[in-house]
Structures are given as structure tokens and as C-alpha cells.
């Protein structure tokens, strides 16, 4: 078991060459590679969208309302006569534009809280953790929906609220790592050398405590993509005809039972693919960062 851990750590620089490195990763976690490939594909859609979209995503073709998929409209048109294919591509931008800042905000808030509470312990730690426990009583979609509705539904609010609501996840993992690291000699010597607390937290502890949080980030990005789409589906936050996947599914919902399936199916399929990619990346990351987990399954 320790052999597996050892090789995981050394394999990266020792095997030499970027290609060998990629192959090494692929062999140890195919899930990671497939996930990364899916995400890259969507990133390419987002970056190269001006060249990939056959039509303007918000241009209505009034004579082509609810047009079935054909050579001109690959994914058909919606009830406004807008091209679903172009809108699905454009939706990738929203997915990344929401997920990335949500993860950054969540970490920016959660990591310092985890560092501090884990290092200090005591009543503050107790209060913060009990508060986080209490928040867990609520399903995340209900909490997100309530806070976004209260704060006023806008794209910025959706991002802020999701980021803040997700910060306990990072705080928890970082805290757990700090609890284990705190007793190490290097921390003790850093204290003895007279380092201020912030320096111990951010310079000495953080680099070692971040691994778990990093492994979580992909799964949390998947959560952000899913929840933000759910909010849009419920009509809170992003509104149709914005080319966002959740809003598009909302638009397509009523046509599912009348046979115009393409309006809602395609944005949902794109949503599943990206979320699946992120989840796979997260799953693979955990395997790679925690070789014991993988070893235990052998």
C-alpha cells in the first residue's frame, strides 16, 4: 500500500516527458482522462463559439417556430423560432462563467475558515461547525433557491449565493487536514520561530492542506453547473430567452408532452455531458491524489 503511495508521488517527475506523464495519469485513472476530455470539448465550444454557431443564438426566425431538427437547424428551433443548436453551444459560456467563479468564491471563503478553525479549535471552531451542520439540514437546492429569491434573482447574485453556500464544503476538508497537520514538528517550529498566525496558516499550513479542497473543486463545479441550471429551470435567476441550458429546458418543458422534444432534450443532454465530465474529473482526481483509495479497491 505504501508502495502505491510512493510511486504515485514519484511517478510524476521521474517518468520524464509530458507525454509519458499523460500516459501515466491515463493508466492510473481513465475516468480522469475521459472527464478532462469532455470538459475540454465544452471549453472549446465556449471559446470558439463565434465560429461554431450557425445562427445568432437569440435571433428569432418567426416563420420557423418549433421547427424539427433538419439540415438548416440541426437541433431544431424553439418556441421563439431561435436555433437550438447555436443556443446549446452558447450555453457552455454560461456554464463556465457560473461554475468557475462559484468555485473560486467558495474556496476563497471556505479555505481560510477551515484553516483558522482547524488551527485554533476551541469554542469558535465548535460554533462554526455547528452552524455548518445546521445548514446541512436544508437541501442545497432549497437553500440556494430561498437565498437567491431573497437577494433578488440576477446572474451576479446566483454566483455569489452559490459560492457562499458552497464554502462550508471546503472549510470542512481543509479543517480536517489542518487538524491532522497541526501536530507536525514543522508547525511547532514555525510557532517557536515567532511566525505570526496568518503566516503559519497561509504559508506553512495551506500548501499542505489544500489537496482535499482541490480534489473537491471539480465535483463542486459540477454542483454549481447543476444548481444554477435548476434555478433557471424554476424561473429564478436567468430568464428565457437567455441561451442558458436550464432556462432552455424550462422553455422546452411544455413541449415535451406535445412532441417537440428537441427544445428541452438537447440543452439537457449538454448539461448532463458537462456535469458528468466534471464529476468524472473529480472522481479521477480523488483516485490520483489519494492513491490509498484506489489501492483499497485492488
Amino acid at each position, binding site marked *: 500500500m505504501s508502495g502505491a503511495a510512493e510511486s504515485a508521488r514519484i511517478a510524476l517527475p521521474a517518468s520524464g516527458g509530458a507525454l509519458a506523464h499523460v500516459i501515466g495519469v491515463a493508466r492510473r485513472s481513465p475516468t480522469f482522462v475521459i472527464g478532462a476530455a469532455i470538459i475540454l470539448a465544452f471549453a472549446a465550444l465556449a471559446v470558439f463559439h463565434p465560429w461554431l454557431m450557425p445562427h445568432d443564438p437569440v435571433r428569432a426566425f418567426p416563420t420557423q417556430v418549433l421547427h424539427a431538427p433538419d439540415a438548416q437547424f440541426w437541433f431544431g428551433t424553439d418556441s421563439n423560432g431561435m436555433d437550438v443548436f447555436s443556443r446549446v453551444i452558447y450555453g457552455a459560456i454560461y456554464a463556465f462563467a457560473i461554475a468557475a467563479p462559484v468555485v473560486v468564491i467558495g474556496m476563497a471563503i471556505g479555505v481560510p475558515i477551515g484553516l483558522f478553525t482547524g488551527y485554533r479549535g476551541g469554542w469558535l471552531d465548535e460554533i462554526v461547525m455547528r452552524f455548518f451542520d*445546521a445548514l446541512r439540514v436544508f*437541501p442545497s437546492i432549497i437553500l440556494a433557491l430561498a437565498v437567491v429569491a431573497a437577494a433578488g434573482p440576477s446572474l451576479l447574485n446566483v454566483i455569489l449565493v452559490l459560492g457562499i453556500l458552497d464554502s462550508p464544503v471546503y472549510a470542512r476538508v481543509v479543517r480536517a487536514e489542518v487538524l491532522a497537520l497541526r501536530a507536525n514538528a514543522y508547525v511547532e517550529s514555525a510557532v517557536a520561530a515567532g511566525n505570526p498566525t496568518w503566516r503559519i496558516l497561509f504559508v506553512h499550513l495551506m500548501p499542505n492542506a489544500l489537496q482535499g479542497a482541490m480534489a473537491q473543486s471539480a465535483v463542486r463545479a459540477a454542483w454549481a453547473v447543476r444548481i444554477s441550471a435548476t434555478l433557471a429551470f424554476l424561473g429564478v435567476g436567468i430568464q428565457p430567452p437567455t441561451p442558458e441550458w436550464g432556462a432552455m429546458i424550462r422553455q422546452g418543458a411544455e413541449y415535451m408532452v406535445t412532441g417537440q422534444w428537441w427544445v428541452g432534450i438537447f440543452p439537457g443532454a449538454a448539461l448532463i455531458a458537462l456535469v458528468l465530465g466534471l464529476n468524472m474529473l473529480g*472522481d479521477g482526481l480523488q483516485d490520483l491524489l489519494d492513491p490509498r483509495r484506489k489501492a483499497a479497491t*485492488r
Partner: protein
Amino acid sequence: MAILRFLLRRLVLVVPLLLAVVFFTFMLVRIGGQDPVARIAGPTATQGEIETIRSELGLDKPLFAQFAIYLGLVARGDLGRSWISNRPVLSDIVERVPVTLELMLWGVGIGALVGIPVGLFAASRPNRMFDQLSRGISLLGFSIPTYWLGLVMLFVFFYLLDWAPPGMGRVSLMLTPPPRVTGSYLIDGLIAADWEVVHSAAAQLVLPVLCVAIISAAPIIKQTRAIALEVSASDYVRYARAAGLPRRQVQQMVLRNSRTPVITYVGTELTGLVGSTSLIEYVFAWGGLGQYGLNAIIAGDFVAIQGYVLFLAMFSVIVFVVVDLAVMILEPRAALQG
């Protein structure tokens, strides 16, 4: 005796939690930037009319005075009246609890019935075909948006195949609901011996239950597999294997030691599924508590939101107590430590 003491201690801890939940929700809906009065009054209301409504709802008083009044009402078992329908929130909620429970328990029950054996079997042959397959399926289950799954089900089984009824409520609109006993049309129909209602209620249940089952099975498979693997890797199981115990007996050991964590997990899963179930209700016009809560939040109906959230918190508490009791009965050792 130990159980009684445990329940009492739980009860003492629950009161501050519920108080905190009530306070948190109360403040959250009020300090947000949204003004519900303008929405209730409508776009043509004059400033005077808006002020009248505001004072009628008691929203012109200081925040803490409002909270004190509300708390007093709650303590007397009155959750107030909805601002939008003007119906008492408590009876609206109580009426809807069994409706949601029916959907959830069927869904999670089937999800667990399928998920736990799949997870256990996958863990017994790790990294083999079945394991990889179940891992892939559970990842997919994690990634499907609940509401989209519901819509696809309706498209396939109602529109294309015409096997299922349209997603409009819990019983066909042509039928009169049975006299209320439990609140579940299926059970009430059986009690009233109204077979048409039973048939229709069962048919209406199939698709939403299937959705909840699929959504709940994914994490159950993943977690059961992880738990069983952890138990298999534990020292005592490795010792048993090294000592040459037959495979069957070792597996039984793994099974028995996985039982408690799996039950605990399915319990927490139940509270986590409230959100997904709400979305399923929304898609199938189920009319349960979940849909009630979503609509209240979207409409900014403060009083209804507060009541709904309070019930959610109570539901979580009850589930956790039931799970702990189950664990106590299965594993008296844990009870002694607690």
C-alpha cells in the same frame, strides 16, 4: 430505558435547533432586497394601498417585534396565513405531508432496494466489469438533472408510448378523490375499496416514483460500495480471510458490519432528497409539500416559506432520530458509547 433517555436528550437538543431555523428563515426572507408587498398589491396599487397592506401584514413594525409576534404564534401552534391564498399555512402543510412522503418513501425504498445489493455486489468483486459498470451508472445518475429526467419520462412513456398517464396530479382528473384517511390516494382508495381510484393513483405514481428511485439509487450504490470496500479492507476481515474462513462467511461478516453505516447513509440521503423530490413534484404537478415550498419561495410568500422550512427541519430531525434508533437496536454497542 436507554432509548428513553436518548430520546429525551435529543428532544432537548432539538428545541434550540428549531429556534435557530425559525430565526434564520425569518430574517433571511426579510433582509433580502425583495419587497413582497409591491408584488401582492399588484402593479396598479397606489402608494396608500401599499402602505395599508404593509401594516395589515405587520411589516411596518421593527424586525424583532415582528419576530416576537411570529414566535408567539408558532409556540401556540399557529403558523399564520399565506399572504397569497390567505389560507392557514399549518393545515395546508399538514395536508401535503403524506402526499410528499408517499412519493419519497416509494422512490427511496425502491432506490435502496436496488442500490444496496448493486453496491454490495460491486464491492465484492472490485474493479471487475460489474463494478465498473455500476460506477459508471452511478456517476451518470449523479449528473442527470432531476427535472429533465421527469420531462424525458413524460415524453417517452406518455407522449411516445402512451403507457403512462399525463403528469397532472395524483389521480385522474375524471375521478373523485377517495375520502381522506391517510392522505395517500392509493391507500385511501384501498380503504374505500374504490378500485378505479386505486388503479389511477398507482398509474400516476409510477413515473415520479421511478424518477426518485433513479436519482436516489446513484448515491446509494456509490456509498454502499465504498462502505463495503472499507469494511473488506479492515483488519478483522483481513484476519478472517487470512485465517482461511470460507468466502461465504467472510462476505457475511462484511455484510453485517456494513449494515449500520449503510442505514445511516440512506437516512441522511432521505433528507437530501427533499430537494430532488420537490423538483419531481414540480414537473408532475404532484401538489405535495415540495411543490408548495417551491411555489412559496418563488412567489415570495414569507409566512408560507417560514412554515415550510420549519417542517423541513423537523423532518430532518425525525429522520435522524429514527436512524439513530435503528442503529441502537442493530448495534447496542453504539448506544453505550452515545
